[in-house]
């Protein structure tokens, strides 16, 4: 296991520090801005009716970006784990996200409360991950089909899944919750309680993934497999079992991400996951393909850049184009990503 840790303790904690730092930044911004709000609520209201100032817009977009980044991290951490352990760029991961929203929507339609529906979606997502690995991916590994060929298989799976989801959900937009969101004002920014709960769920879930990878036996085995499958196998780790568990985790995390995304955007449809697929790829590539914390750091960067850029762009509908441009630039100057090690790049 030394192998996975040879970067040294300082480098190992670096991603954790970044995550902690960004969380603290959010907290600091909210606390600092909340103080004057309570002191002079009148002033805030006046500023609001005046249409909001430049700082106001910037901070609000920063907060939106962090929220979106956290959601994106939750959705894309599975993509990164699968890449790390199997070398597969899974193009069907967007449909995993949509599947979560669709399963939750089906449960809500059947009369379940939203919390129960979310739990159902997570379980269904995990089951879909298990099923996929059992029926498809483990068979492909057994047949020694190269990761690049598996990638094209995942494209086929994505094409099939998105259209089956469309047949299932219909082409119209669906809503998980019909309640109208109240928004709390904290000085220059406002945020709804639903979004705050979503953020908390994201942080807890991502923390759990981090704990799993860093502190548990199975998590260490997972990192060992991603470092060197042959060596891991030689030390007695059951590589296929680890990969199976990664698929289950990836499916449930993507489903949870899908549910939270549907709540955050207040709407969902059959292509909700497909729309963010490239953002997820941008996030994991930016953070460092296959690096366990790369997805988190990359997602926060992608979320913040996408939302904050709308302040400066000529038209806000270019925000995802900016992310795509950023991805290309990253590969130009630092192809291994922000956290990746240089040797990973061929």
């Amino acid at each position, binding site marked *: 296991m030394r192998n996975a840790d040879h970067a040294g303790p300082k480098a190992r904690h670096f991603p954790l520090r970044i995550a902690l730092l960004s969380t603290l930044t959010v907290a600091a911004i909210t606390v600092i801005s909340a103080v004057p709000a309570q002191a002079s609520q009148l002033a805030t209201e006046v500023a609001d009716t005046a249409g909001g100032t430049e700082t106001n817009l910037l901070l609000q977009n920063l907060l939106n970006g962090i929220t979106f980044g956290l959601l994106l991290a939750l959705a894309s951490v599975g993509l990164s784990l699968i890449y790390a352990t199997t070398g597969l760029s899974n193009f069907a991961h967007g449909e995993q996200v949509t599947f979560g929203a669709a399963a939750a929507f089906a449960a809500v339609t059947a009369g379940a409360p939203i919390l129960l529906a979310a739990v159902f979606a997570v379980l269904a997502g995990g089951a879909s991950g298990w099923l996929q690995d059992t029926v498809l991916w483990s068979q492909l590994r057994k047949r020694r089909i190269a990761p690049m*060929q598996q990638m094209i298989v995942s494209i*086929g799976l994505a094409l099939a899944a998105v*259209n089956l989801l469309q047949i299932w959900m219909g082409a119209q937009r669906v809503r998980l919750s019909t309640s109208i969101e109240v928004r709390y004002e904290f000085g220059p920014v406002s945020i709804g309680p639903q979004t705050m709960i979503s953020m908390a769920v994201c942080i807890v879930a991502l923390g759990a993934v981090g704990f799993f990878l860093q502190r548990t036996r199975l998590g260490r085995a997972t990192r060992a497999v991603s470092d060197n499958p042959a060596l891991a196998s030689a030390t007695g780790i059951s590589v296929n079992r680890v990969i199976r568990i990664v698929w289950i985790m990836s499916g449930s995390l993507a489903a949870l991400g899908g549910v939270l995304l549907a709540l955050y955007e207040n709407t969902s449809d059959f292509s909700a996951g497909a729309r963010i697929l*490239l953002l997820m790829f941008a996030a994991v590539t930016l953070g460092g393909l296959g690096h366990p914390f790369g997805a988190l750091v990359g997602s926060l960067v992608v979320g913040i850049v996408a939302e904050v850029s709308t302040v400066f762009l000529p038209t806000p509908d*270019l925000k995802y184009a900016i992310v795509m*441009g950023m991805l290309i630039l990253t*590969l130009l100057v630092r*192809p291994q990503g922000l956290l990746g090690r240089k040797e990973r790049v061929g």
Partner: protein
Amino acid sequence: MDINDILQIIVSPTTAAFALAAIGLNFHYGLTGLLNMGQAGFMLIGMYGYAITISQGGSMWLGILISFVGAILFALFLGWPTLRLRGDYLAIVTIAAAEMVRLIGRSQWLKEWTGGNTGLRGNQFKGPFENLSPFQPARIVEIGPFSFHTTIWWLMLVGWVAVAVAAALFWRLNKSPWGRVLKGVREDEDAVRSLGKSVYSFKMQALIIGGVLGAAGGVIWAHGNAVQPDSMGRVTTFWIWTMLLLGGAATVLGPILGSVLFWAMFVFIKQLAPLVLPNLAPQQIEPLALAFVGIGLILLIVFRPQGILGDKREISLNV
């Protein structure tokens, strides 16, 4: 079941346009092993370059020139950061760049030129080409089972001649020393490098040639339909991949056969679905047919990666 619909789609300009784009992808993937996941982006660049030039008052020839130059620049822009990296980086960058083109094209920002998300209508750019048509006067002409307007006959003639020229180009280059170097790059980059060849430069040349063919396909497609950014999303790229892998990568006729079979099957499934599943709502038929495309792609890779015409030894895919 209408057999005529299937025959019509086989000869249609759309099929010719996709065959051209698939031949372009064959240069990338079949010959050189490059995982270009943004072929629809090349098509979109091509049709924008062509249609915008004409709608702004340029001539048709200038439009074609600009569309090809656009594809060359796009290939340079994509290849520059990624051709030195592992294959999957090229895949992610090409898909991202193609998406970027689509997002900028459909944005309100350049609406004056690109027409925003509604794109450009046919009457803004089709005129000069249709005026060149030798089939006058303009009317519907029936030949055997095919009944088209003369402008479509003219487009089909040009489209399939372009496909034939592209296939001949592939056939010739494939046999040339240049083509052998590309196949060497596909099989073993390091071996080619050790012979003193610049792998980077050869990959770039393949990317440019295939991209220009994609742009040409885009121009033909735009003439058969219109310039619509959202019909050139990444799913369109995946279709082109399915066509190439279906017909057989690294073969001369594979991409053409793939395009013909793809569209014929697509129409066939759309016609068959309501007969087999009478409960299916009309708006569910197209997604069902497209779901079959995805399943077909999976089965192809798993059971017959060389496609119909291909040679299994040529398709190792270990990039």
